[in-house]
């Protein structure tokens, strides 16, 4: 297990390094002065420009620039957003919280719903399969930002059931319970929109893995022992079927985060996505880069966590067993 953790952490280094280097190269490859990319079109004092030029050693060769950029990133200095009057790091971290607040519950619910759909589709063969492939195709094909729009038109504009935008009501509410309820109401539509893709992903994999686990030989052993079907499902089938599902959650976390980023701007959810859209409009490039760097790092972390969870559940991975007899 230690070894697994170590190899995964070692693997993360080049990935994050690539993200950082891509970030660096992009600034330098933009036609014109990299300062334009760093400061944007925000009117700043020439003194400040000179300071940046000196700090990032923009008058030095590219290799030295890269080193100083890496050094800056390692210190947590991702630049300053003039539009928001805040350092990029604190801005991005702050917005990431809102994004995760949207994504986390959505992922959890989507996983459960996806598993349920998979179970149903296996239980009722013909109609279940049709239902499942409809869900899967819908989830993979629907543009999430458009789905969000349609939900707003229907539930907020026409029916007035749910709030259309933001994470909390403007007028403010009092009391923990009321705040929670208010958040929940705001969360429903974006949460659903984010979750749709994920339900499709989970349902597809879970169906295959459940079916696979059910046809495994050890199920026959369990049945031959004489234990109940319920116990067979919970103790033998489900744990084995969950392994591929866990992998796919980790593997698709990037897509889920991307989906969140796309959905947020539709619902004006104050997370990374809205920030991304605003920053692009305002040519606030350091923020865009910061979002890229942060989301890349989050995805890497989630991938490592997935592998560890997998190793925790599966003793074969834990002991480095490679299969075969």
């Amino acid at each position, binding site marked *: 297990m230690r070894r697994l953790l170590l190899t995964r952490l070692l*693997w993360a280094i*080049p*990935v994050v390094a*690539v*993200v950082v280097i*891509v970030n660096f190269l*992009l*600034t330098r*490859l*933009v036609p014109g002065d990299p300062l334009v*990319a760093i400061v944007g079109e925000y009117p700043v004092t020439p003194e400040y420009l000179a300071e940046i030029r000196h700090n990032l050693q923009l008058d030095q060769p590219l290799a030295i620039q890269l080193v100083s950029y890496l050094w800056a990133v390692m210190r947590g200095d991702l630049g300053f957003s003039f539009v928001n009057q805040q350092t990029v790091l604190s801005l991005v971290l702050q917005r990431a919280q809102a994004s995760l607040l949207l994504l986390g519950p959505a992922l959890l619910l989507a996983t459960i719903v996806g598993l349920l759909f998979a179970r149903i589709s296996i239980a009722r063969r013909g109609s279940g399969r049709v239902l499942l*492939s409809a869900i899967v*195709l*819908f989830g*993979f*094909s*629907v*543009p999430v*930002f*458009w789905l969000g*729009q*349609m939900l*707003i*038109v229907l539930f907020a*504009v026409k029916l007035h059931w749910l709030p259309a935008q933001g994470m909390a009501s403007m007028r403010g509410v009092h009391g923990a319970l009321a705040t929670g309820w208010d958040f929940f109401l705001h969360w429903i539509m974006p949460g659903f929109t984010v979750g749709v893709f994920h339900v499709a992903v989970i349902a597809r994999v879970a169906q295959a893995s459940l079916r696979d686990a059910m046809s495994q030989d050890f199920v026959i052993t369990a049945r031959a022992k004489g234990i109940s079907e319920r116990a067979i499902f919970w103790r033998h089938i489900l744990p084995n079927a969950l392994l591929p599902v866990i992998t796919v959650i980790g*593997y698709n976390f*990037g897509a889920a*985060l*991307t989906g969140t*980023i*796309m959905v947020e*701007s*539709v619902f004006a959810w104050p997370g990374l996505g809205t920030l*991304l*859209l605003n920053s*692009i*409009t305002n*040519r606030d*490039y350091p923020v*865009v*880069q910061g*979002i*890229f760097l942060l*989301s*890349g790092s989050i*995805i*890497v972390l989630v*991938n490592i966590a997935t592998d560890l969870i997998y190793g925790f559940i599966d003793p074969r991975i834990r002991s480095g067993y490679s299969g075969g007899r």
Partner: protein
Amino acid sequence: MAWISGGFVVLLCMVAVLAPLLLSPDAPFQISNSVLLAPSAGHWFGTDDLGRDVLLQVIWGTRISLIVGIVSALAAGIIGLVVGAISGYCGGLADAMIMRTTEIFQVMPIFVLAALIVAMAGAGETRIIAVIAGLSWPQTARVVRSEVLRIKGLGYAEAARCLGISEFRILVFEIIPNAVGPVIAVSTLTAAFAILLEAALSFFGLTSSDTISWGSTLSTGQRLLYTAWWLSVFPGTLIFLTALAFNMFGDCVREALDPRSE
């Protein structure tokens, strides 16, 4: 299923090809005073805030969406095929390096990266195609690699080696023809992904304002969501249906190839 989805894609292709022949290139850009009209007999899909006809825009937008989808899927397919074949057949250091690269691609937030590149380097159809293809080939490469690895160990590939047939000929004539099915399946999925990605980029206002695509109309729709639902409904539905058709087609290919399905 295969016929419906395939037919829909063919229909769209025809629209994309015929549109410039039947319409004057200015038509979708024609500004008029009839601003934000709801769908009616005169304007089936309504008009936008500049009085442009949404139907014409949607027809015109088919070209961009399809070109981006198909061309980037093709490009990604070809890159993936070559890279995957090299990786799977040569093995060793080349394989290790390629696999590490695709692993890194897998954890990249592709949309954010694409948005970043397009925002900083400037928009344009070719650039968007290049970015999408450049970011989505690893999928294909992985599929090709695993197919090549599988087939390489099969009797007929080894028998060919024992007959003294050159490695290159074995790869081209024995292995790749048998690996093509999964590549097609994954490529149609890439096409759907590319169409959605292009739509997302234009939705975020990252494509240049003088091209019309489904995503860009949708982007206008977002601004006017409360007043003009038709600006969102029609182009969005088309993006959805097109992606659906590609995904369905990909599923059909995959199912036809899956020996367990029959």
